[in-house]
């Protein structure tokens, strides 16, 4: 399939626009010197991933991303920044290591390996037709076929909740 045919489909155009926004936001997250900006750009990147999930017909996952990530995790990050007095650009302490080029080389190698391995395995074929309105099916599967992993992951979440409280509270003896 040529690029002209590919870009002719409207959903691919949406994909390209959302993908570019996500990549710019992701680059901003890892390079900006103001950590609050980094968190807000993470919101943009995660919103882009939610848009891609909607494009793929996975509404439930998309809204879970919006609720859990954008609603809860990002707020948690902002609290973490406030509590640990994160550098907000005015700080003279650099936010990055000085060894930027080795990290860049490692990231490029990771990208090359991942992209080569996955794209040669799947090939440039058109994916199957995207099913819509999957929320009912996903709910059925989650509580029938995948109910044991579901319970296990809820237990992990409970353990993390208790662990977070135990770790972060002040010791009453002090």
């Amino acid at each position: 399939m040529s690029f002209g045919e590919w870009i002719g489909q409207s959903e691919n155009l949406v994909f390209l626009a959302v993908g570019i926004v996500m990549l710019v936001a992701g680059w901003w997250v890892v390079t900006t010197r103001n950590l609050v900006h980094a968190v807000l750009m993470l919101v943009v990147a995660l919103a882009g991933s939610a848009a891609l999930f909607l494009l793929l017909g996975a509404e439930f996952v998309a809204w879970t991303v919006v609720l859990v990530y954008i609603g809860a995790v990002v707020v948690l990050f902002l609290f973490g920044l406030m509590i640990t007095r994160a550098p907000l650009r005015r700080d003279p302490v650099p936010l990055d290591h000085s060894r930027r080029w080795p990290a860049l080389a490692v990231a490029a190698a990771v990208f090359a390996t991942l992209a080569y391995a996955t794209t040669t395995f799947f090939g440039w074929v058109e994916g199957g037709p995207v099913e819509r309105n999957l929320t009912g099916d996903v709910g059925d599967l989650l509580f029938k076929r995948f109910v044991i992993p579901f319970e296990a992951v809820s237990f992990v979440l409970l353990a993390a909740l208790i662990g977070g409280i135990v770790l972060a509270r002040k010791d009453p003896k002090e």
Partner: protein
Amino acid sequence: MTINQFLILGALLFSLGVYGVLVRRNAVAVLLAIELMLAAVNINLVAFGSLLGDTLHTGHIFALFVITVAAAEVGIGLAIVILIFRNRSSVNVDELDLMKW
């Protein structure tokens, strides 16, 4: 939509996250970069679940599990970061050499 376009976007976002993990000094920024990597994995999983014709939609289910585990990871990670900040009044990962022999 081909699967490969999602795989390449996922690989790009994942390598951005790898770069962030390697280059950042602040522990909260490292956690942010890890979130980016998890989001990239979710894109791959949902693309598999939607485009491979899987009737079980395993990709979607696993993306939900990844989101849950990511939420747990952020909670514990930030609690540890706050604890380190309380003890050492710094969260720069290159200054945490307590366990270096």
